[in-house]
C-alpha cells in the first residue's frame, strides 16, 4: 500500500478523517493534532505510523513485531495503556483519539519512554534466577503439573511491555514501589524449586518498596495484554513474606 498516495487521495475526503491528538516533547510537552484517514482493519499502530511517514517525520514512537508478541508498541490510548498493534481503531470510542506515552516512566521524546527504571526495578526485586554456589551437575527434574510449577507458569509469560507499571496507581504515588511486573516475576521465581536465592528475594520484595504496598486496585490485572494477574502474584508474595516473618518471630 502506497501510504503517500493514499494520504493524498484521502485528503480530498475530509469526512473520512479522524482527529488524532499526539503527545509531543517530553514532560513539558503538549498535544499536537493530526487528521488521519480511516482505513479498513486499521490499528492504532497503523495510525501513528501513517502520521510519522506521511505527515510529520519528527514523531518518535516504538514498535517492532507489529503482531502482538513483543510489547514494544505499548502506550496510552485514550487514557488506557495498550499495545497499539492490538488496538483496532473501530473498537475505540467515538471522538478524537488521544495518544500519550506510558505513565510512570521518564519520557524520552513524544511517545517513547525510558524503560531503564522499569528494568532496574526488575533487578531490585531479584527477578533473576539464582543458581546458588553449588548448582547441580545434571538437569533438575521439575514436574510440569506440580503445584509450584503451575503457579510459576501462570505468571511466566510476561514480556516486560510496561503496561501494568503504567496502569499502577501505587507506582504513581510511591516512586520506590517495585511495581507489578517486577513483583510478578519475583513470584514466579519464588515458585522455582531450583532457585537458591529465596531468602534474599523475599527480603527484596518486602516493605514499602515491595509487595506490602500493593492495595489490590487490580489495574495491572485489568490491562495486562497477556492476561496475567500480578495482583494475585503479589498476594502470593504477601503470604510468602508473612510466613518468613512469622517463622523469624517465633
Amino acid at each position, binding site marked *: 500500500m502506497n501510504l503517500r498516495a493514499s494520504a493524498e487521495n484521502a485528503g480530498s475526503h475530509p469526512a473520512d478523517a479522524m482527529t488524532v491528538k499526539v503527545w509531543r516533547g517530553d514532560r513539558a510537552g503538549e498535544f499536537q493534532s493530526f487528521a488521519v484517514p480511516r482505513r479498513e482493519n486499521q490499528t492504532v499502530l497503523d495510525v501513528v505510523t501513517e502520521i510519522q511517514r506521511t505527515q510529520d517525520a519528527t514523531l518518535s514512537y516504538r514498535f517492532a513485531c507489529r503482531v502482538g508478541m513483543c510489547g514494544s508498541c505499548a502506550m496510552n490510548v485514550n487514557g488506557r495503556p495498550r499495545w497499539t498493534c492490538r488496538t483496532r481503531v473501530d473498537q475505540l470510542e467515538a471522538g478524537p483519539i488521544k495518544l500519550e506515552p506510558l505513565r510512570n516512566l521518564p519520557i524520552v521524546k513524544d511517545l517513547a519512554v525510558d524503560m531503564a527504571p522499569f528494568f532496574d526495578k526488575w533487578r531490585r526485586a531479584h527477578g533473576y534466577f539464582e543458581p546458588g554456589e553449588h548448582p547441580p551437575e545434571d538437569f533438575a527434574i521439575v514436574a510440569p503439573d506440580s503445584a509450584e510449577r503451575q503457579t510459576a507458569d501462570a505468571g511466566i509469560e510476561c514480556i516486560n511491555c510496561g503496561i501494568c507499571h503504567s496502569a499502577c496507581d*501505587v507506582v504513581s504515588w510511591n516512586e520506590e514501589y517495585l511495581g507489578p511486573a517486577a513483583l510478578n516475576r519475583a513470584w514466579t521465581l519464588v515458585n522455582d524449586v531450583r532457585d537458591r536465592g529465596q531468602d534474599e528475594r523475599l527480603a527484596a520484595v518486602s516493605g514499602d518498596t515491595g509487595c*506490602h504496598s500493593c492495595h489490590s486496585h487490580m489495574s495491572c490485572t485489568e490491562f495486562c495484554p497477556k492476561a496475567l494477574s500480578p495482583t494475585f502474584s503479589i498476594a502470593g508474595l504477601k503470604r510468602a513474606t*508473612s510466613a518468613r516473618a512469622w517463622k523469624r518471630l517465633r
Partner: protein
Amino acid sequence: MTPVLYLAQRGTAFVLAFAVTIHLVTIIYAIRGGLTAGEILARTHGNRWFLGFYLVFVIAAAIHAPIGLRSVLREWAKWRGRSLDLAMLAVSALLLVLGVRAAFAVYLA
C-alpha cells in the same frame, strides 16, 4: 511497612472483623425504639464480658488504624521518614488511651 507491621495489621483485621460484626448487630438491636444513656449504661455497667470485649476491640483498632493511615499519608500526603512513624505511634497511643477510658467509663458508670 515491614512484614511484621503487615502481619499486625492483617491480624488485627481478622480480630476486628469479628468485633465489628458483633458491635453492629448489638447497635442495631439496641437502638430499636430510641436509645437513652441510661439504657446503654444499664447494659454495660459491671458487665465484665462487655468490658473484655471492648478492650480487645480498642487494642485491635489502636494497632490497625495507624498502620492503615500510614499508607494513606505516605502515598497521598507524601509524608516520609521518622516523623511519620512517630506520628502514627502517637495516634495509636491516643486511640488506646481514649478507648480504654471509654471502655471503663461504660463499665463503671
